[in-house]
């Protein structure tokens, strides 16, 4: 088997070879092993995702079926997770409300307003925000952002106190739900901006030029072509940001001063905790069924983020196929 093969590659003189030199089962085997390994790596992705769900379910299941008095706080798992789920969604929605319009503005600035030559550099600056570790965001949130926001919160309470969100009393440390939401907003800006920038840059030049040729101003051109074209991309970028905000842990764990409540008050010192921050805070000191309960809450978080990300990515993928078919 090996002798003819090495002879052939060692001294390539195919002229005098028997017909068997045309077949190469050894080589085919190498190909099969390689493509098999590659395929296995692809399948491993699917296996890993399934394993994440399976192991979390396995270790979280005891908490799901346990009696209320055995669980932390002496209440059923669902009563335990409900305020956390509420806090998670609330913080993420605040982040989204702030970051969504901002990311569109930033992406438009980089794609259509900034001078061509430095636009890439500006994009890099925004991407740098994604490189900052979340624990650093957390410290920054406590030391810089929270104290600086206290006067703003005081003002909100004084002027807009009639709205339940701003009923107060204002937290003296500034470590509130709104602060957590704002830190999250900064953290999800880069990914949302990146998606928006990409779809804005994909707007067909012909469309843009047709609009400009009709005498539209830059903003009119953007409103007529760029925004409608990028609509689904903007929506899915927002959902990706939402997914990030739902799962962010350490920044929230550091910034938020939590309590076991459900409240709409965004600026007081009594705040709902988030699932992820609750796990980070409680896990190191927990044992027994409390660990199972934390893992089960992690499963809830996984399901939530999976759903949000899946929908976002499916929309992007459909859009990609759609525009590909047109190209």
């Amino acid at each position, binding site marked *: 088997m090996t002798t003819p093969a090495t002879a052939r590659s060692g001294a390539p003189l195919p002229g005098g070879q028997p017909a068997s030199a045309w077949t190469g089962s050894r080589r085919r085997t190498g190909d099969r092993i*390689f493509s098999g390994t590659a395929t296995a790596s692809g399948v491993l992705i699917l296996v*890993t995702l399934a394993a994440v769900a399976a192991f979390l379910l396995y270790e979280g299941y005891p908490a799901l079926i346990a009696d209320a008095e055995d669980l932390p706080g002496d209440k059923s798992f669902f009563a335990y997770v409900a305020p956390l789920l509420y806090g998670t969604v609330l913080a993420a929605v605040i982040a989204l409300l702030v970051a969504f319009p901002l990311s569109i503005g930033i992406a438009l600035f980089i794609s259509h307003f900034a001078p061509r030559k430095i636009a890439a550099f500006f994009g890099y*600056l925004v991407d740098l925000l994604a*490189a900052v*570790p979340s624990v650093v965001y957390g*410290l920054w949130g406590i030391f810089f952002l929270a104290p600086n926001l206290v006067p703003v919160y005081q003002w909100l309470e004084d002027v807009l106190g009639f709205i339940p969100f701003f009923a107060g009393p204002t937290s003296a440390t500034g470590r509130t739900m709104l602060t957590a939401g704002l830190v999250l907003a900064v953290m999800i*800006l880069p990914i949302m901006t990146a998606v928006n920038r990409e779809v804005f840059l994909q707007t067909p030049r012909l469309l843009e030029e047709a609009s400009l040729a009709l005498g539209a101003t830059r903003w009119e051109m953007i409103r007529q072509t760029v925004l409608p074209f990028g609509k689904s991309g903007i929506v899915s970028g927002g959902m990706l940001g939402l997914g990030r905000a739902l799962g962010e842990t350490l920044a929230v764990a550091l910034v938020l001063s939590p309590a076991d409540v459900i409240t709409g008050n965004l600026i007081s010192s009594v705040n709902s905790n988030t699932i992820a921050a609750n796990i980070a805070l409680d896990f190191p000191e927990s044992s027994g069924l409390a660990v199972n309960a934390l893992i089960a809450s992690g499963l809830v978080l996984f399901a939530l983020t999976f759903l949000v990300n899946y929908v976002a990515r499916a929309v992007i993928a459909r859009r990609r196929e759609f525009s590909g078919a047109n190209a």
Partner: protein
Amino acid sequence: MTSTTVTPPDRKRVQNSLTSGMLPRWVPPAIVAGILAVGLAAGLLFDVNLMLAAAFAVVGVGLVLTVVSRQVEGARRAKDRLVTVVVTSAFVLALLPLVSLLITVVQNGIERFDGEFLTQTMRGVLGEGGGAYHAIVGTLLITAAAAVISVPIGIMCAVYLVEYGRGRLARAVTLLVDVMTGIPSIVAGLFAFAMFAIFFGPSVRFGIGGAVALSVLMVPVVVRSSEEMLKLVPNELREASYALGVSKSRTVVKVVLRTAAAGIATGVTLAVARVIGETAPLLIIAGSTTRLNADLFEGRMSSLPIFTYYSYTIPGVPPEFGVDRAWAAALTLFVIVMLLNLVARAISRYFSLNSR
């Protein structure tokens, strides 16, 4: 003929149908400068909150420019100007946290960012002194192990998607890789814990578990960036290799991967930079300790993000030393991440120059 000898100053005043009704170019910057000057003066004189002053300045610029433009240029141009102001300030607003982060971290971290911090552990240290040496070693070990796990899987998965994948399986993998990039880091930590707890019991804490958790976060990033790079390799090179009687696997390894090597290296470096700052999974599965532990498979292992977290939340007595260490660790982490980003850029630049 005499009318052509107009002097330049006069020509400026001659109205042209294309420039009529336009604001002169110097007007918008002048308005911005004027309002900034007023705002700055007010801020210095009356001790107004700087953030508030900045906010009012932006609104002021938008308002004045729109009104002036409306008078001279009409409603449509005015709206365009307004949008320009809004969009530009959105960008500047995004830079504010970046600048403020940088300043805060450097200002607070530089105090303890010294030789002792980089070379000592926290063993037996209660108040002053001590360092993050054990955490730095732990971070490097765990991240390296995560890279060793993730890079081969990630690259082979990218090879599958670009070179072999067809049909439903490939589409499913593509979609789920994207979904996987969105897995919360704490969930990755819980996954590693849940898996290892089955074999080693509920008190399991070791470095390799952290590496597995980080791999769950890192693999999809490596797949995505490698995939992009493999797609950039021109098909002509694959054909050239096939035409030389080279098998597909050898073509992929020696031509495709080699051509994309620089790009893949850049992507891997960025992926490392992304996971090196992850805190939540390590909190769950790697734990924390005050001494040096260089064995990934045995015992709790500290890491820089965890060191930062605990130095702040459990600072010891008196607390200021712990908080100083937290900032110094944050600065160290920040410097490592920035260095990795620079390395990534250097790799891609060096090789793009070389292959030309």
